[in-house]
């Protein structure tokens, strides 16, 4: 596939995901717009429940079958519309073009298969080759993610590995088929600080080697700052602010973003929990008027409670967007 300069790696437009339950339906992903270019890292930041993971899942079309579905919008991978692909075609995309690293390394490896088996399964599906080479390729993949003694580890079961090691294995699986995009869904939350740092460095190195795009999902602005080029901040299923790292850190346009940045502890590496924002996000099906963040917002006024703010251009160049009435005031 040819890729021209102006075709982004991934382009998401007006993406809406609907979850329907007996009690009603709601949109955990509500009108997303963002793009990801080659070699770029996009951070999706938000509290738990804000719809980050749902966004990631909808990108690979793995939403819970009966409960959730993409209501509208478009996901284009190098100009190709993913939402139009058949399930079989989509399976080819998963793993080989878009890979994913899941939240919990403790449970995201299948306990019943060896590390080698799980890595080579991806090869078998996307880059078949002689059976004999599978093991060698698996070892190779392990080596790439800097697992020590990969010849040995390849035959181990997940429970025989440490947490950090497991996370590397998950990484190995993700990069094994040299995907164009890796979606990393809070890949480091359960790791300790040093391992976390090592792992992030590793991801960055891999990106430098292969030029892949990374979508990094986290609640931790501390990580985002070091790793990402662009940031998307999510609240209650909506993108409330987006833009480059530098601009957002320098000049957060949305009070929520502000609060999130404020929640990053000064001492880097400490696992910050977003406890400093008062109150709770609204319940999914709660009827809402106005800005969903308004009840928790210190700067909210009557307009905030009355009307939902549209997406506004914060810096006037279209590169930094936010949905907050305050942008108009500036």
């Amino acid at each position, binding site marked *: 596939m040819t890729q021209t300069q102006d075709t982004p790696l991934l382009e998401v437009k007006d993406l809406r995901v609907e979850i329907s339950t007996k009690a009603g339906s709601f949109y955990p992903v509500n009108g997303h717009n963002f793009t990801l270019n080659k070699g770029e890292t996009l951070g999706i930041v938000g509290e738990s429940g804000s719809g980050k993971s749902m966004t990631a899942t909808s990108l690979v079309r793995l939403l819970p079958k009966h409960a959730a579905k993409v209501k509208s919008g478009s996901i284009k991978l190098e100009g190709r519309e993913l939402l139009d692909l058949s399930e079989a075609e989509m399976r080819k995309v998963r793993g080989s073009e878009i890979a994913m690293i899941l939240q919990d390394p403790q449970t995201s490896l*299948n306990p019943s298969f060896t590390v080698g088996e799980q890595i080579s399964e991806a090869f078998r599906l996307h880059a078949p080759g002689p059976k004999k080479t599978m093991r060698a390729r698996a070892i190779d993949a392990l080596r790439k993610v800097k697992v020590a003694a990969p010849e040995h580890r390849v035959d181990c079961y997940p429970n025989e590995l440490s947490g950090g090691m497991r996370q590397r294995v998950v990484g190995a699986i993700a990069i094994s088929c040299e995907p164009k995009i890796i979606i990393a869904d809070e890949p480091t939350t359960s790791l300790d600080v040093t391992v976390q740092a090592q792992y992030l460095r590793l991801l960055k190195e891999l990106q430098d080697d292969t030029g892949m795009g990374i979508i990094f999902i986290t609640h931790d602005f501390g990580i985002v700052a070091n790793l990402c080029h662009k940031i998307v901040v999510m609240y209650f299923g909506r993108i409330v602010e987006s833009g480059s790292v530098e601009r957002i850190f320098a000049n957060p346009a949305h009070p929520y973003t502000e609060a999130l940045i404020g929640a990053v502890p000064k001492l880097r590496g400490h696992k910050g929990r977003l406890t400093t924002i008062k109150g709770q996000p609204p319940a999914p099906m709660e009827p809402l008027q106005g800005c969903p963040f308004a009840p928790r917002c210190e700067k909210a006024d009557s307009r905030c409670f009355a009307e939902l703010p549209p997406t506004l251009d914060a810096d006037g160049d279209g590169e930094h967007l936010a949905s907050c009435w305050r942008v108009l005031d500036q």
Partner: protein
Amino acid sequence: MGLRTALMCKKFKEYAVLKYLARRVASSLFALLVITVIVFLLSHLSGNPVDALLPDDASQEQIDAFIRDWGLDKPLWQQYATFLGNAVHGDFGTSLKWQGEDAMGFVLDRMPATLQLGGLAILMSVVIALPLGVAAAVYKGTPIDNSAQMFALLGQSMPNFWLGIVLIWVFSVWLGWLPTSGMGTIYHAILPAIAIAWFQVSALARLTRSAMLEVLDAEYIKLARVKGVSESVVIWKHALRNAAVVPLTYFGILAASILTGSVVIETVFSWPGMGWVAIEAIRGRDFPVVQAVIIAYAVIYMISNLVVDLLYVAIDPRIRND
């Protein structure tokens, strides 16, 4: 590849497994010992073999000779000691009913028939219950789930002898597809195996379903999907592989209850296995055979439990290392 690679993995704690097995064997042997006592006492509490085996008008000399021959005049504990001593060597005496047959030998002769039937029944219940349970889990809350559960429940709600007779009439007499009874070809085994298996399907399918439900929520299932693995491979390989451990633990009980089921079903289908021997021997007060057959049942049960333990270790790396 599983077990071999596991052996290669240096963390594999062979020693612990052996120790565990040794403990299991020892406790099984103890259980067996208690069972010999129960069996011995029960068969001696029940009707006098003299009256079951000698004719109505037997003479006193005949009766006396019989009692002497079978040691029925000795004190009970002495009879037990003799019994146990011989039993250890597999000697349960000769059958009273099947003249000249060594009791345990006779039971062992019939064992293949029961294992064959039980094996087929287990096979059937697994082949039916696993997909049923998996389908019920995958399509949870849909009509597929409901009808799968209904089908399973049905088997648990029919007396097996009744089901057996209905099967005979429907498939042998009216449709003429299968032989009514007896043993011979594989066709003879189908109906009795169904009659035994259906009852088990329920429990097995139920376990499979709940285990699958739990596993399907796991992260590694999501990861498999993310890798681009097809849904059927996700279910049958990634999920079932992990869910299988739960129904497997039920296998010990399954084996026992299939053997128990065979007692009734073998009678209905004239299947000359151990269940049939058990009934005939108890009716005939054939002490040696009754004892041999119960011990044989117990041994089969215990062996199948040991096998389950072993499989358990083989199938689940988590347990292997704990």
